[in-house]
């Protein structure tokens, strides 16, 4: 019965380990492993993943191709930005920052920076990590004033809106990729069709006779939200002197049609994620209002129209630049250092604890592949401190095994059978493994909070990786090692006591047993069976 259970456990462990190894196998194995062996090249892994998004559950293929490396390993820039509320005292900082984060993310993604991280920090700050970007470029991306555009839908002579059907709508330049433009009367536009509207920049002829895009620079920075006589929000806005005739031309031809606002080439969306596109009801020249928005949307739009860009000016509080080449070397050096260290630990364990030590080394391998797989799939941003935490986790995993094996040795010395000694070793060592790991987890939690408070991602990463390490080490050192040991006990390996303990003489016969003072001498029945 028990053997059956252990075999199932072993099967699970093997499956988990194989999955983990396939997941973490590097795409350039020669960088980290002895290069004289032709290692297969890792491809990363794709596996089905469940995504829960606002109640809707979707399945998709999640891809884990490469480890996500922190700035210290990849190079790049880290900025801590603070909302400068002195210039916009009435702004809702919370909402403004959320919007600003969205805008920055959008810009950064368009710039082709992969794996950027933008995080809220405290009440009025943003921490922005931009791998592979130098600080000047980063400051430009983050602090630059965005282009605000007024856009109109593409429409035909009879004011039917052209929507993109069967393809993807593009905004820059406006078009319909792989689909057909279908004319739809305004009244028949459904919510689904909204996303298919082809928005083109609203143009008009300026007083100098030139064709101009109607952009944020023709808008005064004094929009405000008020309420109409039934208490619904109204967004009030005003054009500059140059802008008024432009808007007049645009609204004149758009009457009955919607108008949208684009920031950096992307439509401004409401809290329901629909494009904010109020319908033009009258010709507007210098002053106008937008009705029919929800209170939140009105405030949001007002902020963005005013700022022309970031809803609140951001000040750089902290910036850090790490040279990418330093990072590359560091990764390789640290990985190789870690490998050497782990090898030495395995050698030590095997020479000191014999067969159990070898099995613990195997469990250590399981631990390492699982932890690395978690890092890759989660993904956890790996920093040098994270690598240190990972290696400390190795220490913890080994510690649990050492506790168990020392205990097992003692029980053997007291004359228990091998099976009983091993089981006792696990159960007796458990309380100290639990207590000591809990104290480390407490420290991790505090470190995480500490790092979170001021965006020290290095500290946060360390705490998070150490916590994962501690949790997985409890699984590997206890579950995995125990399964291995239980399965070996049933085999002929268990007959050689010398493979189980180094100092057999102390364990073998009753004569060799030296009872501890204060303890009644017990008769020993050395050996396994």
């Amino acid at each position, binding site marked *: 019965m028990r053997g059956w259970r252990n075999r199932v456990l072993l099967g699970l462990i093997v499956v988990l380990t194989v999955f983990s190894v396939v997941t973490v196998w590097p795409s350039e194995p020669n960088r980290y492993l002895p290069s004289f062996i032709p290692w297969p090249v890792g491809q990363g892994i794709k596996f089905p993943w469940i995504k829960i998004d606002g109640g809707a559950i979707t399945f998709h293929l999640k891809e884990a191709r490469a480890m996500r490396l922190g700035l210290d390993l990849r190079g790049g820039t880290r900025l801590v930005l603070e909302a400068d509320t002195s210039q916009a005292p009435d702004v809702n900082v919370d909402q403004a920052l959320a919007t600003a984060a969205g805008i920055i993310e959008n810009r950064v993604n368009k710039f082709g920076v992969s794996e950027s991280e933008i995080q809220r920090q405290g009440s009025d700050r943003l921490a922005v990590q931009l791998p592979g970007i130098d600080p000047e470029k980063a400051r430009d991306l983050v602090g630059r004033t965005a282009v605000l555009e007024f856009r109109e839908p593409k429409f035909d002579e009879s004011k039917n809106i052209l929507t993109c059907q069967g393809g993807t709508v593009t905004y820059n330049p406006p078009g319909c990729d792989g689909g057909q433009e279908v004319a739809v009367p305004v009244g028949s536009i459904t919510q689904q069709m909204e996303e298919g509207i082809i928005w083109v920049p609203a143009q008009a002829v300026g007083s100098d006779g030139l064709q101009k895009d109607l952009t944020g620079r023709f808008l005064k920075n004094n929009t405000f939200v008020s309420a109409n006589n039934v208490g619904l929000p109204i967004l009030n806005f005003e054009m500059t002197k140059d802008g008024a005739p432009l808007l007049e031309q645009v609204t004149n031809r758009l009457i009955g049609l919607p108008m949208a606002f684009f920031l950096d080439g992307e439509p401004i969306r409401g809290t329901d994620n629909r494009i904010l596109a109020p319908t033009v009801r009258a010709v507007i020249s210098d002053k106008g209002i937008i009705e029919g928005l929800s209170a939140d949307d009105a405030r949001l739009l007002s902020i963005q129209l005013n700022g022309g860009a970031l809803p609140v000016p951001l000040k750089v509080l902290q910036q850090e630049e790490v040279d990418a080449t*330093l990072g590359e070397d560091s990764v390789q050096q640290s990985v190789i250092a870690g490998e050497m260290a782990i090898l030495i630990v395995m050698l030590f364990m095997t020479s000191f604890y014999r067969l159990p030590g070898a099995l613990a080394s195997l469990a250590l391998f399981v631990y390492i592949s699982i932890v690395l797989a978690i890092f890759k799939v989660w993904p956890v941003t790996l920093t040098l401190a994270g690598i240190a935490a990972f290696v400390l986790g190795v220490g913890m995993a080994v510690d649990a095994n050492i506790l168990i094996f020392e205990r097992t040795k003692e029980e053997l010395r007291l004359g228990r059978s091998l099976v009983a000694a091993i089981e006792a070793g696990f159960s007796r060592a458990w*309380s100290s493994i639990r207590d000591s790991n809990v104290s480390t987890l407490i420290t991790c939690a505090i470190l995480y909070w500490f790092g979170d408070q001021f965006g020290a991602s290095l500290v946060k990463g360390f705490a998070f990786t150490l916590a994962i390490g501690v949790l997985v080490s409890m699984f590997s050192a206890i579950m995995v090692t125990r399964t291995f040991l239980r399965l070996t006990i049933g085999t002929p390996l268990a007959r050689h006591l010398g493979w189980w303990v180094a100092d057999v003489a102390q364990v073998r016969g009753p004569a060799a047993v030296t009872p501890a003072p204060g303890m009644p001498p017990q008769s020993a029945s050395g050996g396994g069976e």
Partner: protein
Amino acid sequence: MFDFVRRRDWYYLLSLLVLVPGIISLIIPPSLKPGIEFTGGTTFTVRFAQAVHQDALRSALSELGHPEAVVQRTGESEFLVRTRELEGSAAAPEIGPAPPSERDTIESGLRQRFGDFLDNNGNVSNRFIDFSSVSGTVSEEIGRNAGIAVIFASVAILLYISWAFRAVPKPFVFGTAAIVALLHDVVLVLGTFSIFGKVFGMEINTMFLTGLLTVMGFSVHDTIVVFDRIRENLRRGEGRDFSECVNASLNQTVARSINTSFTVVLVLVAMLLMGGVTIRDFLLVLLIGIISGTYSSIFVASQLLVTWEERDIQRLLRRLLPWRRRPAPVETEG
């Protein structure tokens, strides 16, 4: 069986001898050399293609408007420079290209005087190798939060120990002994870095604090393993008295303590020797802290339990104050 508890006075003395230089260094201001994360300012690393003298660099920086710059040689014609917070690096630019910042001014000024820079691969470059800047407002907060984190961690650990050891007689003594061992390790690390700061100009940063908090976790980890065994042996009535019980427990756990620390130290030394420079200080904190943590779990925390039980302090007082002398109880031997 080795008698751990008899010579406890010597262990205390050894601890004191190791701690005192650090404590003295901590008393002499500045006790620790704070990095820019705690004071605000800018640091950058620059590597020149030609040989540059440290004094020449210092006077060049002073001509460029930075007489406050602290220059430290980190390699052959590679320098770590620390200045006040450079302006221009703290303001996001308006539309258009950013105006030349103070950083640009320094970079071009230094290139004019000393020629090209090199990057990490030894290629000619016109930029510093790394650059970081922290404004004063953040640094104040970081300092405060660090303090809160350390205090919070100590309290949480104390609470956990008193809870985990609630079943033993006098859990308060166990908790206090663990905290004293913890302080022992923290003071040793702080003292060592205080001396390093004065001798090598080593600065402390957030990674140092992370290391310190980790050491606190590990110190307690070690102590708990020993205390757990004492707890179990007390329940089983091992030994003739308390000190024998503690001694037996130490003998039973000493192999584990040494082996565990040995493996962790092994890993840390490998990382320290071969790993990147960025976390060198951090690894050093861990290394010192973990060795100290193992020592203190055996030679401080457990010994303090015996000291309390055997009323050593009362005995010491009697010896120091002869008029209170009474026949001392016979010392127990293991």
